[in-house]
């Protein structure tokens, strides 16, 4: 290894998992060409402090811990860094077992290999033990090279604001706010609706131990217009009936509830036209206004338009169909894919509707609705799941269950908070790492119906769990941030905004003073996507720079 300074060293750990004996490690140490210490099973933990003291004496600024597999190293690495008084990124781990496994064929397997593959004999260190050590030395030198190329990385302590902004005073929002306030966090509860908030608060908190007053500030009739800052230090600009307010908080919890999908502008995918294709809840009222002159007045009740319904919405639709058919004399056509009648009560309701004359149509694929050819009304075209042919039917009105439909309001909220929606337009990207309550943005959480949970007991549990997650984040009061976030070369940055658009965590922004993009160290999660995207090659992730990556390719 050329150019190695003594400010860096290797710790060889004798852990059995590394698959190297003490003797082998001694041999390896002599061949490394870099300062090294052999320590006993550091991953056991008890020896860390003493080892730390020995390592401090070496005066190394960076060290490479070569030992057991990486999963097992996570804890000891951090502890070792603390024991040595080094920044976390200055202590890197290396899996020696990999080298052992990679070279094991130079033992027993070697003889059989030789006949078929002449390459094996050309390799250096053809003996079993020699090959194993050579492979390990090679790996350690790679690790050292990466460490050598890594610039010194500072840490910064960021104060975490204890307050939490909870958006939406529905069941989830109220439960989250009360959970947070019970844990000592000031909570701002922002509710769009003027009246809904206080009422919901009274209903849900009456009899509870945490009173709504303590620690919770309710802002009814208010809306968050903009969110600035990052995790630990957000500033929300809130439009209240009294004017604009600035709220400081450390985290945000979105509990905006079920979105309104009734307006035709709700999205390109919305079936509603404001005239004769309506959300189910508006069907009865619109039907009562229809002129009475027609002989048979037909209505469509559409289920499963986007997603298969829940039991609750199926039940509601069946009741509505029954009422319209029996009590108001309409011919009702109920469109469904695979109606959920697994529950006993639902089964009975289904039978009653059918007996009352509701025409139940099972369809497949996409149901299409357009203006009917003759006169007024709506034509529903569908593939009948029994006939297997495309059939069309004219009705005067169609009521569509809004379950699973994307809403413009949801998209608007998502844009204000910079959170991504899933493929159905619901408030959380569909990714297992985020479940249950995280979003793409660190410090912004989501709970309740806006992320698709509409079963109340479950919803309340989730709201509580998410509030606890926010508490866990903010409770330490400070966040220790290693400044290993991307560095932007302002001379190269063309301000193309690619990084700003592609950062999944909304951590990139334009630093106007520098005239270049920049990363927020608090929000950045060090994935390197921005660097991978930048067309100007202006972005580098210090611990994963091009030179480091290329040094690993030998």
């Amino acid at each position, binding site marked *: 290894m050329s150019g190695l300074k003594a400010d860096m060293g290797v710790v060889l750990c004798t852990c059995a998992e590394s698959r190297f004996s003490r003797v082998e490690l001694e041999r390896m140490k002599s061949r490394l060409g870099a300062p090294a210490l052999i320590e006993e099973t550091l991953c056991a933990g008890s020896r860390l402090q003493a080892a730390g003291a020995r390592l401090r004496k070496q005066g190394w600024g960076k060290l490479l811990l070569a030992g057991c597999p990486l999963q097992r190293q996570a804890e000891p690495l951090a502890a070792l860094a603390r024991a040595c008084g080094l920044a976390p990124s200055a202590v890197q781990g290396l899996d020696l077992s990999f080298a052992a496994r990679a070279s094991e064929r130079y033992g027993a397997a070697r003889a059989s290999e030789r006949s078929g593959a002449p390459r094996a004999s050309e390799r250096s260190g053809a003996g079993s033990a020699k090959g194993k050590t050579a492979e390990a030395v090679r790996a350690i030198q790679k690790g050292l090279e990466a460490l050598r190329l890594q610039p010194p990385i500072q840490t910064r302590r960021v104060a975490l604001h204890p307050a939490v902004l909870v958006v939406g005073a529905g069941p989830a929002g109220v439960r989250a706010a009360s959970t947070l306030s019970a844990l000592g966090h000031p909570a701002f509860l922002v509710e769009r609706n003027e009246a809904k908030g206080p009422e919901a608060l009274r209903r849900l908190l009456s009899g509870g131990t945490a009173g709504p007053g303590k620690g919770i500030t309710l802002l009814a009739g208010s809306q968050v217009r903009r969110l600035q800052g990052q995790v630990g230090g957000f500033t929300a600009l809130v439009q209240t009936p009294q004017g604009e307010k600035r709220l400081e908080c450390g985290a945000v919890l979105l509990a905006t509830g079920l979105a309104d999908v009734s307006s035709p502008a709700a999205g390109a995918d919305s079936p509603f036209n404001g005239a004769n294709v309506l959300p189910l809840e508006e069907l009865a009222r619109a039907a009562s206004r229809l002129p009475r002159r027609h002989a048979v007045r037909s209505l469509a009740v559409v289920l499963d338009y986007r997603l298969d319904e829940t039991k609750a919405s199926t039940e509601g639709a069946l009741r509505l169909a029954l009422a319209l058919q029996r009590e108001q004399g309409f011919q009702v056509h109920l469109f469904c894919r695979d109606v959920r009648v697994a529950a006993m009560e639902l089964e009975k309701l289904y039978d009653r509707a059918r007996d009352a004359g509701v025409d139940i149509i099972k369809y497949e694929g996409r149901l299409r609705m357009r203006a009917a050819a003759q006169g007024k009304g709506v034509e529903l075209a569908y593939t009948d799941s029994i006939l297997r042919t495309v059939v069309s039917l004219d009705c005067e009105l169609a009521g569509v269950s809004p379950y699973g439909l994307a809403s413009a309001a949801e998209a608007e909220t998502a844009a204000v908070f910079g959170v991504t929606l899933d493929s159905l337009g619901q408030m959380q990207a569909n990714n297992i790492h985020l479940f249950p309550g995280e979003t793409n943005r660190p410090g912004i959480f989501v709970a309740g119906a806006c992320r698709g949970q509409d079963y109340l007991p479950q919803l309340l549990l989730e709201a509580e769990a998410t509030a606890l997650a926010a508490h866990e984040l903010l409770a330490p009061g400070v966040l220790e941030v290693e400044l290993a976030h991307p560095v932007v070369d302002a001379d*190269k940055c*063309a*301000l*193309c905004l690619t990084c700003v658009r*592609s950062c999944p965590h909304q951590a990139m922004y334009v630093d106007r003073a520098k005239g270049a993009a920049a990363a927020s160290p608090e929000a950045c999660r060090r994935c390197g996507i921005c660097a991978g995207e930048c*067309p*100007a*090659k*202006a972005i580098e992730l210090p611990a994963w720079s091009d030179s480091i990556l290329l040094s690993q390719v030998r």
Partner: protein
Amino acid sequence: MITAVQKPFGEIYSMVQGVPRLLVLGCGTCVTVCMAGGEKEAGILASALRLANREKGVSMEVETDTIERQCDREFFDPVREKVEKADAVLSMACGVGVQFCSEVFAGKRVLPALNTRFYGTTEQQGVWAERCAGCGNCVLDRFGGVCPVARCSKSLLNGPCGGSQNGMCEVDPKNLQCGWQLIYDRLKLLGLLHLLEENQPARDWSTGRDGGPGKIVREDMVLDS
């Protein structure tokens, strides 16, 4: 900004045949933003050329560098030596940059790696679309901020032809919006539909390409020698 796309590799490759030392020169402004010729693309193209050469047993030295802009003389200074050492420059700038690079290095062969397309905007990440035709006589005030010259396939000034269907242009009904539908919708939104009732006279095209190569002189900014 000016938008461009990289030429097909095969075309570039045959262009550089017989050049012993090639400098692939990226440009750090417009073509970086539209991801056609920035430092990253220059590196990729240089790599691809070297790999193709190795594969075919061609001996060629391929170097790469990127400057701020290839349309201003001073920015070439840092790469002067590299350019001089090379037998040809493969410029990854727009047509302006390629020509200007030739002007700065009169004795050097400068080859274009890009096809320059239009003045456009980033409609979304990875998608660029034309907005201006550089006609030199802006009429956007009369058309609700949507340009009939740039956004109608026929540059019609008095309304859509019969090929406007469902908001799309017949030239490419799947992908191309009818510029006139956009004008109509915008003016309707603004309550200015009456502007469209006016007959637009034949216009003077001499302010644009038809007037010959353009030149702008800002007298007060010209430095006295």
